[in-house]
């Protein structure tokens, strides 16, 4: 049933490039209008406020222009996208309820295996709907909610209503508006005060249908003094027509809480990955985005932390890799609203085979946000002369007592480095891998072990593509 797809561009087997024949209960038509949005909301049996929220967002979407900076999004044909697909009549509650063909896909992604090892909970997004979801019992005992966003809305309506769309309002930008109008799936996480979740919560995401947009929506709330680490990993099959992935992720870290959000994504190189991620960090809270972007045709993503009260700390660690025909426009935003707040941005990008990486970052300190410290470091590595890297580090500092440091380097994989390693027996490809893996090591070491391994493996895969 599952067919191994060939990567048409490179002619190599793309490991996750298989796709299942489509067998969907509900498939909306291409394109978008008000009726489709009402249908989606009705189909999900949503409360009225959400339907209204969606419709309001849709108006913003229509009114907002496309961004005229960053990457080229003019090729996206919004009328040619499926905005909602529901793969199975009901969400599986136990593994046995999950349809066989979906299980096969999960098998290929290694989910049950991973779960046996140390998954705290699995929320794998298949198409627009979360079909399988489980939470380890002790998590439940701690009172931690880890569920898909739709269930979150049904079962924790009050909390969702209080926070949903407050970090990223529906009129924030065109793609956030679109997501707000048609969102489906994603995760809802709520961690009670003082609870520290020691194992990472993980979700696998996957786009399957041709030309299908994926609009997941994630909301994480960490109550005072709590800790949670959320990990999302993405793989996508190869298709010949362009796909759009436009997620919205909202994080709220209340007093003394800490949230770490880790992403490793490897979209196939026809995907537009336009994601809005933002966090609010209150008194003495810490938010860390660890963001690894591989693949996609164009990624535009700038995880943000708003430092709302004294003592808040924000951190973004990102890796971006762009190959032929790819543009990674990624970065970070640190907005110091309150005094005595700190932030660190560390960005590493690799461009090869004519690929393009852009660091675009903003450090903002409002008037009155004194005694702010911010450190920005972005390093770019170019594998050849055709590849390109640009840096746009914007600073907007209204207060005088602010200490902002910025360091940027662009380096080419040097002949001397390669020669040194080759003189120790490594082939040129092995030496290149070693240099690249060393380059991203400061980020890789922040990842859970198997994700670090996965990242190195993916990078290696990408690199070998450039050699052949």
């Amino acid at each position: 049933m599952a067919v191994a797809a060939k990567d048409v561009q490179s002619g190599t087997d793309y490991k996750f490039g298989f796709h299942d024949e489509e067998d969907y209960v509900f498939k909306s038509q291409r394109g978008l209008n008000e009726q489709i949005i009402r249908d989606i909301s009705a189909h999900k049996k949503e409360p009225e406020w959400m339907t209204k929220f969606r419709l309001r967002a849709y108006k913003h979407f229509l009114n907002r222009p496309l961004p005229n900076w960053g990457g080229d999004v003019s090729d996206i044909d919004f009328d040619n996208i499926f905005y909602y697909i529901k793969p199975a009549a009901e969400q599986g509650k136990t593994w046995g309820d999950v349809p066989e063909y979906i299980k096969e896909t999960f098998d290929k992604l290694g989910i049950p295996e991973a779960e046996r090892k140390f998954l705290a909970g699995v929320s794998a997004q298949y198409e627009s709907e979360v079909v399988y979801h489980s939470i380890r019992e002790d998590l439940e005992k701690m009172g931690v909610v880890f569920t898909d966003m739709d269930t979150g809305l049904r079962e924790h309506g009050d909390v969702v209503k209080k926070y949903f769309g407050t970090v990223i309002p529906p009129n924030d930008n065109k793609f956030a508006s679109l997501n707000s109008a048609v969102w489906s799936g994603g995760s809802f996480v709520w961690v009670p005060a003082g609870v520290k979740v020691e194992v990472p919560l993980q979700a696998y995401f996957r786009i399957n249908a041709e030309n299908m947009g994926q609009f997941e929506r994630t909301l994480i709330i960490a109550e005072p003094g709590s800790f949670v680490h959320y990990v999302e990993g993405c793989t996508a099959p190869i298709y010949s027509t362009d796909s759009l992935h436009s997620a919205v992720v909202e994080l709220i870290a209340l007093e003394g809480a800490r949230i770490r959000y880790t992403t490793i994504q490897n979209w196939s190189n026809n995907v537009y990955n336009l994601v809005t991620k933002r966090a609010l960090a209150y008194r003495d809270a810490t938010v860390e985005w660890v963001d690894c972007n591989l693949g996609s045709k164009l990624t535009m993503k700038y995880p943000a932390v708003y430092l709302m009260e004294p003592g808040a700390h924000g951190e973004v660690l990102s890796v971006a890799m762009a190959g032929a025909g790819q543009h990674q426009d990624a970065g970070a935003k640190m907005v110091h609203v309150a005094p005595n707040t700190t932030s660190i941005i560390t960005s590493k990008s690799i461009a090869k085979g004519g690929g393009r990486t852009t660091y675009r970052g903003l450090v903002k300190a409002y008037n009155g946000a004194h005694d702010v410290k911010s450190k920005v470091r972005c390093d770019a590595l170019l594998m050849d002369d055709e590849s390109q890297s640009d840096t746009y580090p914007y600073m907007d500092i209204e207060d005088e007592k602010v200490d902002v440091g910025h360091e940027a380097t662009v380096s080419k994989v040097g002949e001397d480095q390669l020669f040194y390693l080759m003189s120790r027996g490594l082939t040129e490809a092995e030496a290149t891998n070693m240099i690249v893996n060393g380059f991203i090591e400061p980020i890789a070491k922040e990842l859970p072990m198997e994700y670090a391994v996965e990242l190195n493996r993916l990078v290696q895969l990408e690199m070998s593509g450039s050699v052949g």
Partner: protein
Amino acid sequence: MSEPSLLIDNLHVTVEGREILRGVNLTVPRGETHALMGPNGSGKSTLAYTLMGHPKYKVTAGKVLWKGQSLLDLTPDQRAKSGLFLAFQYPVTVPGVSMVNFLRQSLRAVRGKEVAVRDFRKDLKSAMDVLKMDNQFVTRYLNDGFSGGEKKRAEMLQMAMLKPEMAILDETDSGLDIDALRIVSEGVNSLAGPELGVLIITHYQRILNYIKPQHVHVLYRGRVIVSGGPELVGRLENEGYDNIIKEFGPADDDAPQAAA
């Protein structure tokens, strides 16, 4: 004298279009230790890089035989696998790659097979003991933030692990303090044997007091102008290069092509 292991014959090399080596002749028989001396800029490192296969150094004439085979067609990694080793005058930094990880991969590459973790640890430990290196040293990134002396020691650690048949040491002694020089020299001596050939590039007699060369060669403006016994080192130390150049150097330095 045993059979020649490394034979350099009339080697001409250009860098960035400039001819640096202009007909080098040099032979290092198997198991022997030779010293290569010469003023700054005479081409010693150029010779070392060329032997290891640096892509910037273009051989325009001459040949190099290594264990009877032509060396010049091999890539640097093939040369390493064939038993050649170069200790760099200026070792290169590779951030993010730990020494231990690097040594392991390098050893696997050179041996052409996986090395058991236990054996690797054991070898590493004893090599580090000989070189009096601290344990935590190998967890640091390759040459990243190493002091000059630490870099040189790290080169010797690599040599000890890779166990080459022919080692070229490019000014391994410079930058070492007196104790380190002795320790590193003892390290080299502990590796020496009937199998290991060594070509020591140096400016000073000090290291040659520990590692005794059978032969000494003086390179001047891209040519070996004189080869002799260890007594040459003492003469250089006392007199400097001037007399030697006067005695053995080419009559006309600016007509390199004419001299043969």
